């Protein structure tokens, strides 16, 4: 590497690592993500889980013998209702979990009912309170019980009624498809955040402070300044992205529910991580270069942030595409589009479907885009309109 590139890199890195506030800005997101996601997972778990020993309070009007027997077998105590209106109010007040209202002569009417006979089917009314987790759980249990009873009355055939395992996806595949759906978007956002936290400061900030011209009157080539800055920014942005990604990967099992078996980043091998690292590095280079060019147009750091906004929206849109794409694209053309190719590669790595050709093409395209960006940035450093537009 040319010594002037290395000198510029060293200076940029020294500026970032010498500034405690900037260090906190860069590394804090990972810690925050871990804490916030873990807290959210725990809070949501508490919100949607019920105490296993909890016995729901259920009342029924005209409880038929058939359902009474089923409820007893399922361990659901059902009391007879004395006043339907009062019981409905109790459900609203969350003092009662469920109120079942059966039509008169339910068992007889069910036995006599013939589908397609023109008569209305006997209707069971179940009153519950969706604001109460206990009431909702009781509603789902009783609905399931009644559905099963209804199926048993006219049982013609069963589906997957045996004790075997019918979903043949491995735990790794299942977890992989979850990661492939969620992580590319999150990673793209984190990488963008990392790049946008450092690039405007280094380019527009130097213009704003009048320090870039001091460097431009040295015999250092403009392209060396551009390369040195982009490489140093990429390292810092990678650290920021890595911090965020690590926080997410560690917190995701907690967010999704720790009881989900196999939901862990352990499913990936060293090869997967190497592929991911290569894709992330090339993505960061593209992002840093793009934000640097936008920042060079800006007169201030604030203006650079607003110029970068469309890029942020683009990155988010591209990231979201992984959630609906059903895994990595098989078309090589998709890997020729910068940023979209990164998302496709990430989805491919997470879902174990990445190919060497796709990753290679992505890295080549992103490398080409970065080189083009360096050329543009070097030209911009030569432009008096750009450098002195203050």
């Amino acid at each position, binding site marked *: 590497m040319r*010594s*002037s590139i290395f*000198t510029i890199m060293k*200076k940029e890195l*020294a*500026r970032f690592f*010498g*500034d405690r506030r900037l260090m906190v800005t860069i590394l804090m997101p990972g810690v925050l993500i871990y804490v916030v996601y873990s807290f959210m997972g725990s809070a949501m778990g508490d919100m949607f889980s019920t105490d296993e020993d909890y016995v729901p309070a259920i009342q029924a009007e005209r409880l038929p013998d058939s359902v009474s027997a089923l409820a007893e077998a399922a361990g659901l105590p059902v009391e007879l209702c004395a006043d339907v209106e009062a019981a409905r109010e109790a459900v609203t007040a969350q003092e009662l979990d469920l109120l079942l209202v059966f039509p008169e002569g339910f068992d007889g009417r069910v036995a006599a009912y013939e589908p397609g006979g023109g008569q209305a089917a006997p209707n069971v009314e179940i009153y519950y309170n969706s604001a109460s987790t206990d009431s909702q759980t009781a509603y789902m249990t009783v609905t399931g019980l009644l559905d099963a009873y209804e199926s048993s009355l006219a049982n013609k055939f069963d589906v997957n009624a045996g004790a075997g395992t019918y979903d043949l996806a491995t735990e790794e595949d299942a977890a992989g498809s979850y990661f492939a759906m969620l992580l590319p978007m999150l990673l793209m956002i984190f990488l963008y955040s990392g790049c946008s936290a450092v690039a405007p400061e280094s380019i527009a900030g*130097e213009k704003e*402070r*009048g*320090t870039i*011209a*001091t*460097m*431009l*009157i*040295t*015999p*250092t*080539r403009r392209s060396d300044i551009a390369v040195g800055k982009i490489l140093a920014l990429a390292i810092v942005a990678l650290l920021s992205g890595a911090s965020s990604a690590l926080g997410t990967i560690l917190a995701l099992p907690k967010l999704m529910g720790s009881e989900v078996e196999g939901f862990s980043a352990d499913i990936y091998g060293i090869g997967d991580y190497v592929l991911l690292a290569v894709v992330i590095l090339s993505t960061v280079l593209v992002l840093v270069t793009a934000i640097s060019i936008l920042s060079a147009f800006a007169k201030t750091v604030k203006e650079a942030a607003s110029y970068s906004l469309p890029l942020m929206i683009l990155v988010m849109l591209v990231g979201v595409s992984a959630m609906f794409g059903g895994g990595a694209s098989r078309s090589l053309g998709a890997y020729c589009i910068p940023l979209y190719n990164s998302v496709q590669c990430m989805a491919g790595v997470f879902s174990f479907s990445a190919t060497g050709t796709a990753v290679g093409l992505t890295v080549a395209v992103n490398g080409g885009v970065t080189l083009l960006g360096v050329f543009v940035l070097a030209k911009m450093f030569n432009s*008096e309109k750009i*450098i*002195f537009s203050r």
Partner: protein
Amino acid sequence: MRDILQVQHLSKTFRLSKKQQKLERTKEKVRVAVNDLGFTAGEGEIFGLLGPNGAGKTTTLRMLATLIRPDSGDALIDGKSVVTEPDEVRRRIGFLTSELKLEDCFTPNYLYDFFSDLHRVDREVRERRKEDVFTRFGIDRFAEVKVANLSTGMKQKVSLAVSLVHDPEIIIFDEPTNGLDVLTARVVTDFLEELRSRGRTIIVSTHIFSLVEKLCDRVGIIIDGQMVQCDTLANVTQGESLEDRFFQIYKETAGDGQ
């Protein structure tokens, strides 16, 4: 004496934005900043560019420092063209202006090393020069203090030291004593005289008459982007004070009532 700087028919125009046109209440789309400028400076000479604000002094110096390209004409520094050999020119010049700032988060020591590396100054030479200049300017006591925490005068001294890390043949200073207290200004002017005695050529732009009278061997008066007078100080002043002579020339050139 060899002419180490030769400025030949240098011209530069700027396109005015609509905002600038509105601010300056003009319908002109183009502003001529420097118009067919020519002068020379010899080795070991201090050349003063004198002119009012907006005369084109800073634009001229920026062109000499290769920060902006002339529209036409050229300037040769030790035979190297600012248009076709800007890297070679940058090796030979030191440029200091109040526009060029040092990064606040670094120490003078770090910045001196950084710019020495960019100029590829040998480590031994760098350390020797650093010790000399830091001691001379009293920077040594603040060598490890961040620039942000230095006084304005000390910042200017550090800027001066940093702009000379490569011991350039030509030193270009835009308003060298602007905003400095009298003590620091004296240190700077003394240093410029010492550089001259070491054979270095110094180009200063200023509108401070006393500075030109004290320092400069030759002076060029720029008005509206044109060199209206360029000669030795004695020939320009013709026995009068520089200030009186300047206003006479200005009146003749720019017209009455201005």
